[in-house]
């Protein structure tokens, strides 16, 4: 039942398309709910939503295999959901509860899952870039063929440690994919005001790292680029750069009114480029799904997200003695 449709990607099945639709929708509805809970005071501190960028992580996770690693910045909820982490645990971490992935001690920006090879959730812009190269280093050292997806934004791309990492990743042929999620704004600074050359993917050339630009609103294009990058890394050819052009619909964080761009700009993107609507269109025009099928998916997602919100509200706050745990380890928290 391979879906031979008129659209760009011939080699994607209807089931796969539906999966991407479902996963992107889960992220969007989850984030909308998180925004709502933030407004109600149930989520505190910084909270960076991923709405608009869903195709990036869903497309790349479609190119990943078991044992591949991922690491990202503080805009991390989408990455966690896309790699299969439990929405309940993620939402409960947002509300700072015992049932959260970090027992309520990490919050929105600092979440991890050893089980899903998700290495955070890092709050310092670009710090995750050498860390991701280091994860790739560990796989190369162990002699397996796993790859690490190291995500960072167009803002982070101006940090010096990114280029230190490019240099060593190329020098040591580390199996790392540097994924630049270019949502075009580093907080409130538009890319043309922060970045001397518009095409960030070219910046690997000085180090001999191949790079390409990808339409980040098109999940199939992202997946295809991801597969190419993964094959490159798995073959031992060293790092690869994907600059994925995307767009966040919301402000930088919940407290950002986003006055640095026009409402029309956002509206145009939502109407013409929305990644979920694009897949929805493919499913409907290719007759791979009916309106009713999609409604059923919407309903299921809504239930998952509501259940996560309920869990996150009902889970107790961490016991006070949690203040004093996990500061130092008595035994190794992991083995090689």
């Amino acid at each position, binding site marked *: 039942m391979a879906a031979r449709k008129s659209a760009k990607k011939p080699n994607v099945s209807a089931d796969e398309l539906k999966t991407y639709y479902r996963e992107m929708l889960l992220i969007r509805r989850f984030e909308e709910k998180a925004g709502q809970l933030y407004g109600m005071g149930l989520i505190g501190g910084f909270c960076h939503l991923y709405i608009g960028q869903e195709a990036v992580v869903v497309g790349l996770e479609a190119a990943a295999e078991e044992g591949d690693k991922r690491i990202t910045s503080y805009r991390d909820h989408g990455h966690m959901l896309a790699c299969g982490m439990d929405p309940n645990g993620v939402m409960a971490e947002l509300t700072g509860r015992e049932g959260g992935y970090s027992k309520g001690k990490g919050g929105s920006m600092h979440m*991890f899952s050893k089980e899903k090879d998700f*290495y955070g959730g890092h709050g310092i812009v670009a710090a995750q870039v*050498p860390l991701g190269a280091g994860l790739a*280093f560990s796989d190369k050292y162990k002699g397996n063929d796993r790859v690490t997806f190291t995500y960072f934004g167009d803002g982070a791309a101006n940090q010096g440690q990114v280029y230190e990492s490019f240099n*060593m990743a190329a020098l040591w042929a580390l199996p790392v994919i540097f994924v630049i999620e270019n949502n075009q704004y580093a907080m409130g600074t538009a890319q043309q005001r922060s970045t001397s050359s518009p095409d960030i993917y070219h910046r690997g050339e000085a180090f001999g790292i191949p790079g390409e630009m990808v339409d980040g609103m098109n999940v199939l294009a992202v997946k295809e680029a991801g597969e190419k990058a993964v094959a490159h890394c798995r073959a031992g050819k060293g790092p690869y750069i994907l600059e994925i052009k995307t767009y966040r619909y919301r402000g930088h964080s919940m407290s950002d009114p986003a006055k640095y761009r026009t409402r029309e700009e956002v509206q145009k993107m939502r109407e013409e480029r929305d990644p979920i609507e694009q897949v929805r269109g493919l499913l409907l025009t290719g007759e791979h799904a009916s309106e009713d099928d999609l409604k059923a998916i919407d309903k299921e997602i809504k239930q998952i997200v509501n259940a996560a919100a309920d869990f996150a509200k009902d889970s107790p706050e961490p016991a006070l003695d949690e203040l004093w745990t*996990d500061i130092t*380890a008595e035994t190794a928290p992991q083995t090689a």
Partner: protein
Amino acid sequence: MATEILMPALSPTMEEGTLAKWLVKEGDSVSSGDILAEIETDKATMEFEAVDEGTIGKLLIAEGTEGVKVNTAIALLLEDGESADDLPEAAPAADAGKEAAADGGSDAPAPAPKARETDPGDHAEPEAPEPDWPDGTKLKQQTVREALRDAMAEEMRADDTVFLMGEEVAEYQGAYKISQGLLDEFGAKRVIDTPITEHGFTGIAVGAAFGGLRPIVEFMTFNFAMQAMDQIINSAAKTLYMSGGQMGAPMVFRGPNGAAARVAAQHSQDFAAWFMQIPGLKVAMPFSASDAKGLLKTAIRDPNPVIFLENEILYGRSFDVPDLDDYTVPFGKARIWREGDDVTIVSFGIGMKYALEAAEKLAQDGIDAEVLDLRTLRPMDTDAIIRSVKKTNRCVTVEEGWPQGSVGSYISSVLMQQAFDYLDAPVITCTGKDVPMPYAANLEKHALVTTEEVIEAVKQVTYS
């Protein structure tokens, strides 16, 4: 008049060396840039070039002579028209060796200030009353440098996830020769030269630790670790907590810390108090070679990020080290170097040098100091300090770092809160002066803590 060719100082801390080989002989004419000799420091063999033109009139120090002090005349260079026969008979004999330094002539520079003296080899250590090894253990003399190297080698043999990375650690054999021979034994996969890129390679090492390896990161000096501070603190120290215990960074950050000699403000800083403040880190700062070895082995095995603060001046100093297959020293246990009833002197790292010197001199004045080496600053053996102060009722702390927010300040606050009733005098914190490190030799000497200051502090708290 013949020109004296003097034994050169080939590193900031070199005070003597071995004249390994002469590459010229008497009667050879030389011009500037010609290599005259090979000289071994404790770190490397260096070539020594001629500066002036002339004819080698006399070789004053035989090749193979060890312990030739810097600025000793090692040869005489004849100018045009002079001949070897013109040389006065009184010139120092070729067998001068070590003695040459003592009477190096009236124009020889003053000997290095006592406080800066490195003391390889034959220094008599006071016998520690609480050794960490059983009675009858066979001991060997080792430098701190060798002890650190052995610790890494032993742990790398035992666990193949342990690897060393840093600038010049592999092919160069270490900027301070701590990693000498490791590349040969373990290969380039596990002894890794990095580019000069502290922020980046520290982040890569932390990531590798997240990924299940046990990295040892060598900072050429800890001054350069400031470039990597974010990765050490925000990434390595905090991840175990932020992940609710799921993952952490079992690794060691090590390298020389504190003042070396004449390298001025940007290269002379003691970071003990900085790192000691961070929950999630452990901090070790050994003084002796046995502790350097035992603590580094413990650090490599520890499942947490460990800051391991070494000292360049101590690298060449020798101590007794137990000749055991697997000698480790636990964290959080102070060592009593000297027992006494009159005052407790608490120190760590190179501060111990001043503490022990002061205690020795104070003993001559009838003041019996108990000297405690903390060995690790986090965890800190405050129980040992309190125990000792309950006996002596007086405490002086010694460190090279700055006074505000010093390790000593913390110790004195602990004593005030937990042993107030036992104190007969305020705690005095002997620290480095509250200034960036100056370059000038006399100013540098005054910027550091001195033995005399420790003695003075003890006299103040003992009212003597």
